[in-house]
């Protein structure tokens, strides 16, 4: 009877929102927000399976031209390797709830794991003789998955670039094609709904009004099975109607992953990073950064972030050369696209390279290019900086903490090694 009661109790508990008591250990920084949505990763009686990982990470891996896709390891000729290290499964390298062995990027294997398959690398690459295997992925040279900014020909192509390019501008974001503009006199809110004329005035000055997006486009929404009706506070689903790509990015990053998992919205009070105490009770959806009715993207791209984020990197931003450029652009003293806000790096403007679309859009997954941070090189750094400087800067944790005020204290030899190899080989391009 006691057993039955215990099982019943557990079952009731599992069905409740409070599943924290079943967590076997602290969840990694990438997943802790959704740790109570157990079925995001776990399948009953199967544990955590790679298919669950791929639901969220597949697109990212494909866009990153994964250097070690599962398909490379399912070949029977690699059976011997798989017996030593089953690289066909994500959870071989990324075990959750094991903080005592979890390293950067959620890797739970020793840092010299490359040795399993590349122990003879020095025979192919004599320059790698005597290099420690725990330095492959920690020295700014190689990544297990995404090596798009680190391969030899890419290094050679960008070998002689200066620290700052002569034209240092981010890609311009074209305004969406306009439908028929609407103005305040033709707004379609139900009579008397909008009590505050300031809201109407704000909306009328936005790209929304200029593109014919009237009040009802956002405020008249369906709720569950109910018919569409006016709501004063539309959620992110309303924005998603037109901004699918942005919503997908938001849902894939740490700002929106809780909502995507069916949990409540993320809040600074739940964050592991330092946050401003005044922002603790805020919650995150589109309107948190894009103030409703003004949708000021410039504010969302810098000051909006600093409303909440209070880590050292964020706090150092306003003393950084990047902010000086941002302010100069804001004050009209520098050309469009020359300033560097938080979003310039963390929500970059991307083209077809990411997302399969040739249109320029803002990637709203602010975590997509963070780990390993070399992922940021192509989509962000190379707009303004040379490759060598970018690799060095991203390999210097102190420089990152000071928000790039100063110069890199480290030098990564990737380009030097590529040049030496090319010089030694007459067939090199």
């Amino acid at each position, binding site marked *: 009877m006691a057993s039955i009661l215990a099982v019943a109790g557990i079952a009731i508990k599992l069905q409740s929102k409070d599943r924290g008591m079943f967590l076997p250990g602290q969840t990694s920084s990438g997943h802790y927000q959704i740790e109570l949505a157990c079925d995001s990763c776990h399948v009953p009686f199967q544990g955590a399976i790679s298919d669950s990982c791929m639901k969220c990470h597949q697109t990212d891996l494909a866009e990153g031209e994964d250097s070690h896709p599962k398909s490379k390891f399912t070949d*029977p000729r690699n*059976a011997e390797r798989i017996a030593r290290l089953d690289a066909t499964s994500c959870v071989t390298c990324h075990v959750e709830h094991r903080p005592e062995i979890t390293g950067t990027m959620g890797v739970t294997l020793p840092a010299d794991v490359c040795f399993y398959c590349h122990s003879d690398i020095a025979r192919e690459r004599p320059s790698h003789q005597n290099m420690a295997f725990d330095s492959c992925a920690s020295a700014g040279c190689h990544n297990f998955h995404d090596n798009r900014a680190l391969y030899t020909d890419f290094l050679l192509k960008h070998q002689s670039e200066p620290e700052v390019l002569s034209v240092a501008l981010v890609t311009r974001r074209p305004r969406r094609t306009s439908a028929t503009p609407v103005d305040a006199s033709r707004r379609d809110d139900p009579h008397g709904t909008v009590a505050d004329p300031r809201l109407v005035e704000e909306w009328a000055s936005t790209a929304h009004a200029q593109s014919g997006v009237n009040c009802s486009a956002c405020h008249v929404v369906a709720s569950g099975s109910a018919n569409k009706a006016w709501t004063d506070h539309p959620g992110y689903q309303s924005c998603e109607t037109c901004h699918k790509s942005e919503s997908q990015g938001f849902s894939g990053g740490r700002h929106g992953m809780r909502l995507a998992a069916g949990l409540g919205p993320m809040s600074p009070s739940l964050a592991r990073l330092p946050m401003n105490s005044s922002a603790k009770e805020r919650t995150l959806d589109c309107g948190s950064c894009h103030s409703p009715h003004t949708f000021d993207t410039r504010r969302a791209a810098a000051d909006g972030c600093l409303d909440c984020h209070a880590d050292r990197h964020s706090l150092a931003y306003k003393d950084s050369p990047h902010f000086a450029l941002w302010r100069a652009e804001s004050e009209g003293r520098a050309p469009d696209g020359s300033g560097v806000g938080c979003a310039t790096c963390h929500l970059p403007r991307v083209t077809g390279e990411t997302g399969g679309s040739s249109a320029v859009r803002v990637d709203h997954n602010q975590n997509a290019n963070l780990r390993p941070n070399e992922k940021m090189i192509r989509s962000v750094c190379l707009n303004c900086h040379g490759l060598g400087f970018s690799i060095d800067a991203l390999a210097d944790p102190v420089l990152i903490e000071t928000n790039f005020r100063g110069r890199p204290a480290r030098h990564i030899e990737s380009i030097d090694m590529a040049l030496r190899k090319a010089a030694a080989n007459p067939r090199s391009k």
Partner: protein
Amino acid sequence: MKVTLMKTPAHGIRAIAFAALVCAIATGLAACGKGESAASSGITPKMMADSLHAVMESDRVIYTKQVVNRLQQENVIRANEHWKDAKALPLPAQMFRMGSEMVSEKTKDFNYALLSLWAVNKQNMPKTDVEKAGLEAVVAKQEPYYSEETLGGKKYFTAVYPDVAVAEACINCHNDHEDSPRHDFKMGETMGGVVVRIPMI
């Protein structure tokens, strides 16, 4: 003993697999292995491998000759190892490998790879004894090599087919590549081999 069933959606391959299963059940693998026609006694692993390779080889030759070589000669577009960055065509070997990787995501019932004794990427050098013997044999005789091998505790029928330089693009790329261990390939020469594996249960 029987060969495994195919799960690929390709109707032709499914038909081959079905015939192979019928063969295995009705006559046993030994009887199937003597080269009888499909109509009389089903399809052997050898016939299945040969058929798969016939498709692979044909597509590969056509892509190499009619797409890469032709468009390069007409100065329309180049093929490049870093084809995405270079906004170029994938090299024929990359095209082949991408297909192989996609197939491996769809089925475990067969597998294929492009290997060479002189591979640019050293991961594509022969690894198993059968691969070594097979590649040496196809280079020496320019005809297929068949064997069986056990990998990871599973038995495979393994066929190795000569991969011949059919276009200037093949030999130019390999002869000029800094990571190539050989720089004197000639047209018509066997540069490597296509390895097709079919699990046997």
